[in-house]
């Protein structure tokens, strides 16, 4: 499936559909869901990154929830880093 991270399209390997993903917790789908953590690993190309914060479809996702928050096709992830500001 395809998602976008910071506007860049990223292909993630999964058969999980948007609908399945949203029903994942109640239907016990056999598909292996992809989580935010998985998307980050691919985006960062396995490089260790710690100084960032993340939003999924415009909503903040805390660091502790990366491994339990599923992503679905066409999701938008924003990863933000500190910069100088006024």
């Amino acid at each position, binding site marked *: 499936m395809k998602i976008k991270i*910071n*506007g860049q399209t990223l292909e993630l390997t999964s058969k999980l559909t948007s609908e399945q993903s949203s029903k994942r917790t109640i239907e016990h789908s056999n598909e292996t869901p992809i989580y935010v953590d998985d998307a980050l690993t691919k*985006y*960062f190309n396995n*490089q260790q*990154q*710690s*100084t*960032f*914060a*993340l*939003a999924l479809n*415009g*909503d*903040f996702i*805390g*660091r502790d929830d990366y491994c339990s928050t599923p992503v679905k096709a066409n999701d938008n992830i*924003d*990863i*933000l*880093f*500190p*910069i*100088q*500001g*006024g």
Partner: protein
Amino acid sequence: MTLTTGSLNIYGQKLSSRLLIGSALYPSPQVMKQAILASGSQVVTLSLKRQNPQENSGAQIWQYIQEIVTQVNGFLLPNTAGCKTAKEAITLAKMSREIFKTDWIKLEVIGDDYNLQPDPIELLNATEQLLNDGFNVLPYCTDDLVLCQRLYNLGCQVIMPWASPIGTGKGLMNPYNLETIRLRLPHATLILDAGIGKPSDACLAMEMGYDGILLNSAIALADDPVTMAKAFAGALVAGEQGYIAGVMQERQTAHPSTPTLDTPFWHQS
């Protein structure tokens, strides 16, 4: 010269400097550091943006600013620059809180791209939700008395009306509005934010009784940012002491400063 002022209170945190300083637009990180140190400020603003992770420059800047803030025993003030809705600003505030580990947020919700004027409706909405979520909100707003009152009534202990649009350096566009806000909100911590161009602008606001000044461009874009930072530090102290000392009443007619009694040659012609 020894500069002394009273302390600035930001949500219970007492600060020795009344100047809050931005970290953007400096010619180099080294000049930024020197200017911040020269300003005496203990509060440094910064932001969050998208970035190519391969560059890793975010982590470097973050580390650099952290070192400066630690050196001055200071505090970070993340902003929500670029947000146009309450939802965007709230999300960015939460992201900032996680990275910077502070409940302070300089809340910016821009309503117009031309003059970067804050959107009062979205600002109030975001402020209310963030306060309920435990943030200490420092809202950047226009010099509208009723808007400032509404922000104060929501629970903002600090309110930051603009002097003029961000980055213009036009100084205090509406001194009457700013004076009125000071008079009507005597217990709020009022920090003038944005539009300051010259040290005398900052001095004027402090003479009105403002509690502090937040600025960036006026120092960062000066020919010599470090010297300008010192100039602003002095201007804030001069303005504050002028306010404390009590400015004389303005008079409509001239009054001689030198006593006229026993003036030599008086009425001799």
